[in-house]
Structures are given as structure tokens and as C-alpha cells.
């Protein structure tokens, strides 16, 4: 009796111990898995903390000081912000220039990209070549392209005005006429619309053919199909494009810096974009405190517009199956 009892107890013990060991093993495996996960994403975490979060918070502090690299940092409260809104008229000029650019370039390039994608989604011979050609300008960027456009937009001997003259149009002075400097940059932007086109093309090809066939049976024409099937089906991509190109539009700087004399803002400051004004304050005048407060105002403006976009998106973006992205 006793021996049986001991045996039973032993069995229970072994079972219990094994269970505990298993539990322990699973736990340690899971811990190792977690550790591996954190190790894998560690580079991004370091980058996020050191290159984004840290600098962002530091610049928030700097924006309340008069820091100019050589001086010590003195806390000046809201002085920078007060100066920006009440005394610096170039701040308002640059903000207006940037809003003008964003307001026109975003819708124009979005519509252009959709139209081009629809054209390039037709079945005609040589389509592969057309797609390559139309996409090409999107990979060309940087100073070389800005120089090219300065040449193209040259008032007397440039290609743009030469082409306009064939149609009897007397082209404007583009980069020399304050009224036309920003449209000139939008025209240049429109040239590389192929980048956005590719996104739309990919999503157009994802629209099920049966939908069009069903609509045709119901007697829908091309335009009806476009507005009632194509556009609703690609709204997620339109939304993505608008959100990102709005943020991108606010980044405009290089074009204006290269295409004007040393980034002086062009004729009557018509190309003095927000970032250019910020750049001049930070790296020409070394008013780091003031420039930091400008950066934060930009950040807040862009965030508000993006939030607005995201809120508005819920109203018009169609997600297949009804679930949110």
C-alpha cells in the first residue's frame, strides 16, 4: 500500500514538474522571441529617439530662447512667436507663397496623374514604351533638372515660350515675372506627374473587370463608368496621394533655392517659400531660436491640415468590404 502510494505521489510529482518545466520553457522561448523582436527593430528605435523625438523636443525648447549658436541660450518666452506673427512681414509672404503652391500643385498633379493613368491603362500597341516614357521624368530630379527648367523657361529662347509662340501665344517671362514664378514651378512639377501615375495605374489594374461588364449590360457609357466605378474604387489611392503630396508640397525649398540667385526668394520675394525663409534665418543669420519657432509653426500647420484630411477622408474614401484601412 505504502509503495503504491509513493509511486502515485512520484508520478504526480513528475507530471507536475514536467508541466512546470514546459511552462518555463514556453515562457523562456517567448521571452527570447520578444528579445529578438526588440533587437530587430532596435535600429529604428534608436533613429526615432535620436533623430526625431529628441531633436523635436529640443527644438521646441530652443524655440522659446534666443539661441544663435554663438550666444548662450536665454529663455525669452513667446518672443519669437510674437515677432513672427506681428513684426516679420516676410513670414506672412512666405506662408502665403507656400499655401499658394500647395493649393494649386496638389489638385493639378493629382488630377493629372489620374488622367494619365487612365490613358495608360487602355489597350493600344506600344503601351509598354509609353508607360516607360511618361514615368521617366519622375526619376529625374535634383539640381540638373532645375537647371534644365531654367533653360526651358528662358523668356526669349526657351523651349516653352517657343512652343507657345507656335499657337500665337506670347509667353510670360516665367521666372522673372513675380506673377508667373509659382505657376512656373507648378508646370515643372506637372512634368514629373508620372510618379503619381504609377500608383494609380497599379490600383486601376486592381479594379475587377466584372464591375465594368455589369455596368455595360446596364447601358453605362465611358464617362459614367469612370465616375461611378473607376473613381470610387481608387479613392484609397487618391486619398493616400493627397495626404502625402500635401505634406510634400509644404517641403518645397530646393527648386526655389536653386532657381533663384542664392535663394534670395526671386522677384519681389515671389519664390520666398516658408522653408526658404526658415533656412535663411537658421543658416544665414543663425537665428536658431527664431527658426525653430518657425519650424514648430510649420509642424502645427501641416499636422492640422493632415488631421483635417484624415477626418475628411472618412467621408469620401471607399474601402472594399467596408472595413477601415
Amino acid at each position: 500500500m505504502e509503495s503504491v502510494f509513493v509511486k502515485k505521489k512520484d508520478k504526480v510529482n513528475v507530471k507536475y514538474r514536467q508541466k512546470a518545466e514546459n511552462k518555463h520553457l514556453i515562457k523562456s522561448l517567448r521571452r527570447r522571441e520578444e528579445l529578438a523582436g526588440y533587437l530587430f527593430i532596435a535600429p529604428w528605435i534608436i533613429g526615432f529617439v535620436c533623430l526625431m523625438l529628441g531633436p523635436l523636443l529640443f527644438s521646441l525648447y530652443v524655440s522659446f530662447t534666443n539661441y544663435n549658436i554663438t550666444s548662450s541660450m536665454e529663455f525669452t518666452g513667446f518672443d519669437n512667436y510674437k515677432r513672427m506673427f506681428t513684426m516679420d512681414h516676410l513670414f506672412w509672404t512666405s506662408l502665403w507663397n507656400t499655401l499658394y503652391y500647395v493649393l494649386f500643385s496638389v489638385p493639378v498633379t493629382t488630377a493629372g496623374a489620374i488622367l494619365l493613368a487612365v490613358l495608360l491603362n487602355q489597350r493600344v500597341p506600344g503601351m509598354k514604351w509609353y508607360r516607360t516614357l511618361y514615368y521617366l521624368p519622375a526619376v529625374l530630379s535634383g539640381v540638373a533638372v532645375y537647371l534644365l527648367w531654367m533653360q526651358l523657361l528662358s523668356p526669349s529662347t526657351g523651349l516653352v515660350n517657343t512652343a507657345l509662340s507656335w499657337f500665337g501665344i506670347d509667353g510670360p517671362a516665367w521666372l522673372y515675372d513675380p506673377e508667373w514664378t509659382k505657376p512656373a514651378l507648378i508646370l515643372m512639377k506637372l512634368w514629373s506627374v508620372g510618379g503619381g501615375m504609377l500608383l494609380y495605374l497599379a490600383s486601376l489594374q486592381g479594379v475587377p473587370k466584372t464591375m465594368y461588364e455589369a455596368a455595360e449590360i446596364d447601358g453605362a457609357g465611358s464617362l459614367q463608368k469612370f465616375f461611378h466605378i473607376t473613381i470610387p474604387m481608387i479613392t484609397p489611392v487618391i486619398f493616400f496621394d493627397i495626404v502625402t503630396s500635401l505634406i510634400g508640397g509644404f517641403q518645397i525649398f530646393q527648386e526655389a533655392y536653386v532657381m533663384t540667385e542664392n535663394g534670395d526668394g526671386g522677384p519681389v520675394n515671389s519664390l520666398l517659400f516658408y522653408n526658404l525663409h526658415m533656412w535663411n534665418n537658421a543658416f544665414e543669420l543663425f537665428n536658431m531660436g527664431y527658426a525653430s519657432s518657425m519650424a514648430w509653426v510649420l509642424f502645427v500647420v501641416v499636422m492640422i491640415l493632415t488631421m483635417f484630411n484624415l477626418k475628411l477622408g472618412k467621408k469620401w474614401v471607399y474601402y472594399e468590404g467596408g472595413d477601415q484601412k
Partner: protein
Amino acid sequence: MNTSMKTTPRYQSRSFRTKIKKVLVSLILLAGSLVILSPVLWMVSTSLKTPGEIAQFPPSFLPDKFQWNNYIEAWNTAPFTRWALNTLFITVCVVIGSVLVNSLVAYGFAKIRFRGKNILFVIVLSTMLIPGFVLLIPQYMLFSKIGWVNTYLPLIVPAFLGNAFFIFLLRQFFMTLPNEMIEAAKIDGANHFQIWWKIAMPLMKPAIITIAIFSFNGAWNDFLGPLLYINDENLYTLQIGLQTFKGTVQTQWHYLMAASVLVLLPVVLIFFFFQKYFIEGANITSGTKG
């Protein structure tokens, strides 16, 4: 009987209409490609003209005589060879960093379970919404504090710390890897690092090449970074060099255009050779795959 007689002419007229539509689309595309291509042709043509011919009115389309010497003279007027080598060095470093680090991070987000993963990934995505210019000034203050100004470190090191867009793209790719494959490798005793390097990376070659091309273009065309951090002319990149060159040769457009063609050439070549990878990238961003 009656219906078939009715449908035949309707069918014919319809195929006739699609034919007309095809011709129309072809014509529009042809005209459009001329418009799209003309700036590039203009650039090449201008680069082969004499200054006198460029100033002439009305402008000529093809150069009278092809001035191939413009290219050699433009290249030798400034230390372009040096700048090209500098740019190549930075670009190679950035490409290596982007490919390795972003795929590592993306694998972590796609295939490893750990606490807080979803929140962290949302943070990754939301950093894409921060306008880069906002970070420019504080990052400059950081890099100047640690003495990195006038070195390539501010241009290269960030590439080794992940890029939200690339992480997002690669994660979409890695998600398509079957979990059973990873479990099987684990049972064979492989750890995640080995699985990433020996199984995931080789299978993800198209995605890796896409990232390599995107980061190559980004680094090759980067203007802001070098403009901000590089002061020594010997350390210039092609972009900054070209901007300086614009100041030295003023309005000598034959030189400016020749140099521009040469700077753009590598990007154009890569584009023509690796076209399908650009399309791959667009497919993933638009969500039609992955």
C-alpha cells in the same frame, strides 16, 4: 431571327467605336510623349550647341555642328571627377545601410511576436507624416554639437537607422512569407537572425532591389543634406558641385546642360535597366499586393 438582325449592326458599330477610341488614345499618347520627352531632348541638344547658337533667335532644334567637346570642357572646368567619386561613396554606403537595416526592422515587424509591436508600427507610419524640414534645424544642432559637420556621417548614419517608408514597403513584402516556413526553420534550430538572412532575404530579392534603387536615387539626388553639412569643396557631391558650377560659369548654358546630362545619366541608366522594380514599388504602396 429578329433579335440577331438587330444585334449584328450594333455589334459592328461598337467594334468600330472601340477602334476609333484606340486610334484616338494612341494619338493623344503620342503627342503627350513628345511633350514629356522634349525637355530631355532639349537638354541634350543645348549641351551640344555653341553659346552663339543657344542665344540665337528663333532657337534651332538640332545643333549646327555637334560640339562633343562641351562635355569634356564642362567636366574639366570643375573637379567633377572628385565630386562624382564622393557621391558614389556616399550613395553606396546609403544603399547598403538602407537595404540591411530596413529589411531587418521590417522582418521584426512582420514575423516576430513581441509586446507593443502594433503601437510601435503605428508610430513608424505616423513619422511619415512629419515634414522633414521640421527636423532639419534640430538635427543640424545635434550633428554640429558632436562635430559631424563637414563629414559624411550626417549623410550616411541616418540611413543605418531606418526609414519609415522603406520599412512599410518591406514589411508588406515580408508579410507574404508563409509562417509555416519560419516555424519549420525554427524546429531545425535556426534563430530569427539566421531565418532573416538565409531564408527571407533571398526570397525577397525583388523587394530588396526595389529598396536599393529607391535609396540609390535618393542619395544620388540628395541636395539638402550636402548643402547643409558639407562646406569643403573637396568633399562636395555632384548636386552641390553642380549648384556651385552654376555660379562659376554663370549663363554658359552649353556647359551647364552638358554637366547636367552627365549627372543625370546614372539615374536614367538604372531606370531603363530596372524598370520593373519601380512598378513593384508602386504596386505595394497602392495596396494591390501584399
